[in-house]
């Protein structure tokens, strides 16, 4: 079983967002970067499937600037076998980025290609499904269960009002949601081993972008409201506020 896991480097979810002076991106000063939380479910799924198969290889692939290598080392410390850094500048056009990944993955002989369902920075939610379409592979997005038996994968995904079940033949592309598994934490041994694992660098260029970021802005600040009182005695005051002021009851 040969498994590719595509990884994004994103600001820590506790980061406070400030807009850079160009007005189209964030100010990265003092911001800590982490592996995209949803990609950790993909990493865990890939590592567990390789281990269960008792053979095979997991490869972490990331497209971005050199800083992404640090994030990739976290994946290697979790237990991924090797990394491929597609070195370049990602585009605002998700399809241009998906092409970079698809072109690299096309002849890689991967049985499974895994993504997180969304990167928690740009909230694009498109790269995995685009890569699948570009490669002509089966795809399910935001999966919460994955069972691989022989050459087949069974998955479930949450949809409005229920849980959808599906199956497909491998090779396939999946994007992973919370609930799929509990990602392992890298141990000290893994962190030491990660330093020696191969990380190939492949210079890459994204194609023309048909997406322009016009602006990035902070949402309007919410004004703090008022404490209507203390304890159960404050409930009538709250009910009055919700009924007459907010008109939500």
């Amino acid at each position, binding site marked *: 079983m040969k498994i590719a896991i595509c990884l994004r480097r994103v600001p820590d*979810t*506790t*980061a*406070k*967002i400030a807009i850079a002076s160009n007005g189209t991106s*964030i100010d990265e000063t003092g911001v800590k970067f982490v592996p995209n*939380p949803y990609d950790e479910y993909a990493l865990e799924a890939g590592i567990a499937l390789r281990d269960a198969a008792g053979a095979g290889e997991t490869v972490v692939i990331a497209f971005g600037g050199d800083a992404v290598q640090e994030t990739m080392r976290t994946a290697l410390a979790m237990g991924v076998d090797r990394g491929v850094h597609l070195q370049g500048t990602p585009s*605002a056009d*998700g*399809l241009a980025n998906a092409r970079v990944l698809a072109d690299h993955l096309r002849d890689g002989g991967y049985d499974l290609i895994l993504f997180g369902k969304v990167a*928690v920075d740009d*909230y694009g*939610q*498109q*790269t995995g*499904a*685009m890569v699948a*379409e*570009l490669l*002509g*592979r089966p*795809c*399910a*997005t935001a999966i919460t269960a994955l069972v691989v038996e022989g050459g087949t994968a069974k998955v479930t995904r*949450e*949809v*409005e009002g*229920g849980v*959808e*079940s*599906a199956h497909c033949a491998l090779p*396939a592309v999946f994007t992973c*949601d*919370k*609930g799929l598994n509990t990602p392992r934490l890298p141990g000290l041994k893994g962190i030491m081993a990660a330093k020696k694992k191969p990380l190939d660098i492949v210079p890459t260029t994204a194609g023309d972008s*048909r*997406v*322009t*970021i*016009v602006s*990035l802005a*902070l*949402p309007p600040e*919410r004004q703090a*409201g*008022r*404490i*209507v*009182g203390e304890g*159960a005695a*404050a*409930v*009538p005051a*709250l*009910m009055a506020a*919700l*009924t007459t002021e*907010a008109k*939500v*009851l």
Partner: protein
Amino acid sequence: MADILCVIEQRGGAVRKGANELLTAARQLADQLGGRVDALVCGVGSVNGIDALGAAGADRVLTASHDAFAQYAPEAIVATVQSVAGQYAAVLLAATATGKDLAPRLAAAIDAPCGMDVTAVTAVNGAVRVVRPVYAGKAIQTLEFSGTAVVAVRPGAYPAAASGKAGAVESVAVPAFTPRLTVTGIAAPEKATLDVAEARVVVAGGRGLGEPQHFGLLEALAAAFGGEAAVGASRAVVDAGWIEHGAQVGQTGKTVAPELYIAVGVSGAIQHLAGMRTARTIVAINRDKDAPIFKVADYGIVGDLFEVVPALTAAVKAAKGQ
């Protein structure tokens, strides 16, 4: 190229709710561009609800019939849309679980840029422009696309409207396609609960609940709203296994915009605030008067949730005449 194609979701032979909101967005965009709105419905035979799509804003309703559409069949929908997509300025879908799955596949198939989970779509000098929350709502991004764009519109971002006219219905052929993913069905959850992303009222619990069984208090409060409230949760309690991950509100959970959000025992970590700050009215109930949640709440009660929540439940019941 001023016309807009709306891909309308159906399930089990009936148009899904949300179609009218999507058509409102499409109508506004088409009017700006001076074009027409076509609604495409992929189903088996005739689909319930297509008669109402004209009144909701569609000039034409295109129906594509195939046995594959008994379940969600992404390759068949992509092939059908691809066969007509060339003539449109934009293809609009609802940013539901299905729409978010379908939009990027379509974009890749028709070689178009894609905007996901947008809250507004307009035309500026003939180009499609979208507004969308990023960083789970910590920032707002405006994008402009060149050429045909695939746009998934967030449910609830547009009101449903009715124009009062009927759309002409025409059928389109489903081209040959290669099924790759086989969807076998949708299982209803054990408890029929409203999704936090779709509820008018969300009652959310955090670590302040102390123990998982105390979510029962929140379920009782949600129930008092009579079927329009859902129970949500902060990341801490989801990670602790107190409640299923589908209830999580925040940067690594769902982004919600209900009319009323009641945060109980939720301290208000920045990731949680990102997911619920667009609620119209926020109520916080917390023992700690310095909790960050009070900085975004419209109304707060400082106190023991085990006293406040049952009293609030009784008051809501009384207000609802229960």
